[in-house]
């Protein structure tokens, strides 16, 4: 640790009321080869440069069998095959299947894809991402898969198999869907579903771009399209309320979605990352539905009013002021935009002030997450990276297609790139895409599974729990609210006055779904004075004097 970093950290710790210092450097161990995970992503790129080929794929972490360990679901691409009526998506070959790996002990996994029925082998869907949530409130996490050509809703049957309920539930979203997320939009106690859609693009309208060199087209070449909001009717079906609730009035080129309560009114709001057009903030107006307010609150563009290629997005409080902020990834030279929630309904673009201009100027990012990787009480930044154009070197010298992932530690609101010391995986250039975050081995820290386009995923285990810093994880169980607790706001307060907030959601990042358990780094604080849970249905629950370095379960009081 440099003297400057130490000073920043100490100042940060004072601000938070934490005094802990990270005893060892944060490192991630790449155990991809030891896990038994044999998945390999297949986008099957062609010389025709179909845009879908460069956009996938996602990863989901979910404990589908409730054994306490996170299982891993990978979304595959597909093959574009010429048929009598033109190109179609073929998923029949086993290497093109989605795959689910059941965790045996947090470190080794077995392929249960065929057994549980989530291969998508018979679908003509070019896979993109996944969302997780217990939409039927039966205590088992369900799975929603996005892609070009349709979507899939899998209902989890008692942790043993999944049942395809797409058609029966009305959850088939046409076109090209990207990131999606479950959230309780109307706070009625069951999870609704927000599905982003990328472009008005099809295999019929697909074409390469570029004059001398064939490249994937810019999204500017294709019309925008509306996102889809599906209301959970509570009987196992969904109805499309996109128009009625004000989501379909504005079109975009959406790739990422995240949820949080931007304006502290107790209702979940939606941030959507759009590629090369304005970002969208759907503010929840309760019975009046949603209104899109990104421009008026300062979230639509960068500080100069310029659009950027919004890919992944996260909606968390990076500066510990209790208000959710927004971070997104973008293409090289655009910088990763960070918007600070200023309160009073406005956001300020603080990319430069937070040190991200310096770090991200040449980077192209996909999945992004604000999560406390080193347990110091500040949410750090991770980004999966790689340019969208697989031949960008020919187009613009100085830019590169394959890029290592980024880990930047948050030191009192300013980020420092520590990738060089975080392990070999952070020095290896890849085409990173979706990433899921969670505690795979239940040791208290955040591990991650990084999806790689046309390659094997990377499974990274953190060493943060080996430091002297303390941690706490919270697993929510709703009763009046959604069973898995998504939408709850959890704040913790420590004896030294520091406060942190997390929002319960598995969404965020890019095409991926993460651990539903809420994770807090605590520095040297060995006791949490107070935990306050604001449940989506309105209940407020307080726990006091909670010990650390453990996972606690919090059940919502019965109404």
């Amino acid at each position, binding site marked *: 640790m440099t003297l400057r970093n130490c000073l920043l950290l100490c100042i940060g710790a004072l601000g938070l009321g934490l005094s802990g210092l990270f005893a060892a450097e944060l490192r991630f161990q790449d155990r991809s080869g030891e896990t038994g995970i044999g998945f390999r992503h297949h986008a099957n790129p062609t010389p025709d440069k179909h845009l879908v080929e460069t956009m996938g794929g996602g990863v989901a972490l979910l404990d589908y069998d409730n054994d306490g360990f996170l299982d891993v679901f990978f979304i595959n691409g597909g093959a574009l095959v010429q048929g009598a009526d033109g190109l179609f998506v073929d998923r029949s070959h086993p290497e093109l299947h989605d795959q689910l790996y059941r965790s045996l002990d947090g470190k080794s996994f077995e392929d249960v894809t065929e057994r549980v029925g989530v291969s998508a082998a018979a679908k003509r869907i070019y896979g993109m991402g996944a969302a997780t949530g217990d939409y039927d409130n039966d205590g088992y996490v369900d799975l929603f898969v996005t892609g070009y050509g349709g979507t899939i809703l899998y209902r989890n049957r008692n942790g043993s198999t999944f049942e395809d309920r797409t058609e029966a539930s009305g959850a088939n979203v046409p076109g090209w869907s990207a990131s999606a997320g479950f959230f309780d939009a109307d706070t009625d106690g069951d999870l609704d579903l927000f599905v982003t859609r990328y472009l008005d693009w099809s295999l019929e309208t697909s074409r390469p771009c570029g004059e001398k060199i064939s490249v994937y087209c810019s999204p*500017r*070449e*294709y*019309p*925008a399209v509306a996102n889809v909001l599906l209301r959970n009717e509570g009987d196992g079906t969904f109805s499309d309320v996109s128009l009625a609730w004000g989501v379909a009035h504005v079109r975009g080129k959406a790739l990422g979605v995240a949820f949080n309560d931007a304006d502290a009114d107790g209702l979940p709001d939606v941030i959507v990352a759009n590629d*090369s*057009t304005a970002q969208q903030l759907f503010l929840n107006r309760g019975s009046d539905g949603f209104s899109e307010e990104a*421009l*008026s609150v*300062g979230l639509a*563009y960068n*500080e*100069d*009013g*310029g*659009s950027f290629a919004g890919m992944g997005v996260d909606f968390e409080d990076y500066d510990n002021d209790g208000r959710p902020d927004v971070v997104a990834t973008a293409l090289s*030279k655009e910088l990763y935009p960070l918007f600070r929630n*200023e309160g009073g309904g*406005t956001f*300020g673009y*603080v990319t*430069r*002030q*937070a*040190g991200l*201009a*310096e770090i*991200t*100027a*040449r980077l192209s990012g996909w999945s992004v997450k604000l999560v406390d990787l080193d347990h110091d009480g500040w949410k750090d930044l991770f980004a999966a990276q790689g340019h969208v154009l697989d031949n960008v070197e020919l187009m613009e*010298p*100085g830019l590169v297609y394959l890029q290592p992932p980024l880990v930047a530690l948050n030191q009192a609101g*300013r980020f420092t790139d520590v990738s060089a010391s975080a392990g070999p995986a952070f020095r290896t250039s890849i085409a990173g895409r979706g990433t899921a975050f969670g505690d795979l081995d239940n040791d208290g820290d955040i591990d991650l599974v990084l999806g790689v386009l046309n390659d094997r995923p990377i499974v990274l285990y953190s060493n943060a729990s080996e430091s002297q810093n303390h941690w706490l994880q919270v697993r929510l169980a709703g009763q009046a609210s959604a069973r898995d607790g998504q939408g709850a706001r959890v704040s913790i307060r420590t004896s030294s006055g520091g406060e942190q907030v997390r929002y319960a959601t598995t969404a965020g990042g890019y095409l991926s779904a993460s651990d539903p358990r809420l994770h807090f780094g605590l520095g040297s604080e060995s006791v949490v004075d107070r935990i306050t849970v604001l449940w989506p249905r309105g209940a407020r629950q307080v726990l006091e004097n909670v010990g650390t370095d453990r996972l606690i379960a919090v059940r919502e009081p019965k109404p």
Partner: protein
Amino acid sequence: MTVRLAAIAMLVTVLSAQVAGPVAAHVSRGVAAREAGRLEEARRELEAAVRAAPEIAEAHLYLGLVLHESGDFTAAVGSLSRALGLKPALPGARELLGYDLLMLGRAAEAIPHLDAARRDDPGNWRASAWLGRAHLEAGDPVAALPHLLDAQTAATADPELLYLLGKAYAQLSLQAQAQLLASAPESSYAHLATAEDHDFNGRADEAIAAYRQALAGIEALPDAWRALGDLERDRGRHRDALDAYQRALQIQADNGALHLRCGEALLALGLADQALPYLETAAGADPAPPAALGALGKALLDLERFHEAREALSQALAALRDEQKRMELHYQLARASRRLGEDEAAREHLQEFRTLRAKLTAGDK
């Protein structure tokens, strides 16, 4: 720029006076065919004429003219050479021969003919221009330049002449640089020349390395520091850019553009408080550069000095006509107004922003 034989009418008169009988008939039909644009017929008639009267230089010249106009430069060179063999001072023949030799890539042979044509008729700027071109093609830009400049005094805006002048300067530059690199390859100026070449050709990493080598030898090269800073800035390495700009500023302490660059680098690093004095200096010029005012406004926004930010941004907006910049300023002014609680002003700026943005992105789907 095309070759025009100045005295075609006189040539025809002289030629016609020298021939009689069947030769005269061939010449007459040849001249008529050429004037009617029937060059193949003209060629046949004039070839018959020179076969019948090979001693008449004007007939060879006129045939050479027809061959030249037909694009058969090889045959034209033959006829024109024969004409000059018979009558070395034949008006117009040398310019035409020089041009046709040039067309055939025989620049060195063209030079004496074009030089003679220029001396015979000092007002013939085309001969000077062609002579310059011949020297260029012979690899001698030093010899070419005075002739091209001489021609330019008579034809200031001739596109081909301007192109040739540019080419001459470029060749001179390359020659000088080649000499520099050959005679003092490890000198700072050799590295500087290499850096500028890399920079011009978009090889940023190589340019940065060469600039650093140049500056390691001679520090008092403010333009090199500035160029290095710009390259580092474009690479996103704002600390390195700042260091380079500050080195330049040590040499040119009053340079407003350098103050602006230092301020912008510090802004990119999120250090608005440190950027402020640089930007205030840059914006303190009379008249204040709009770019400096805009950057100053941005720094003041960072520092949450919203009234002052609005003032600086408004001044920048008043001074700028560029629609992209105006769009950016309206967006920033909307933010300043919003933070000042001036919602109506914020709405107006956002409306202006929307209008300009819609116009500037009209090509997007």
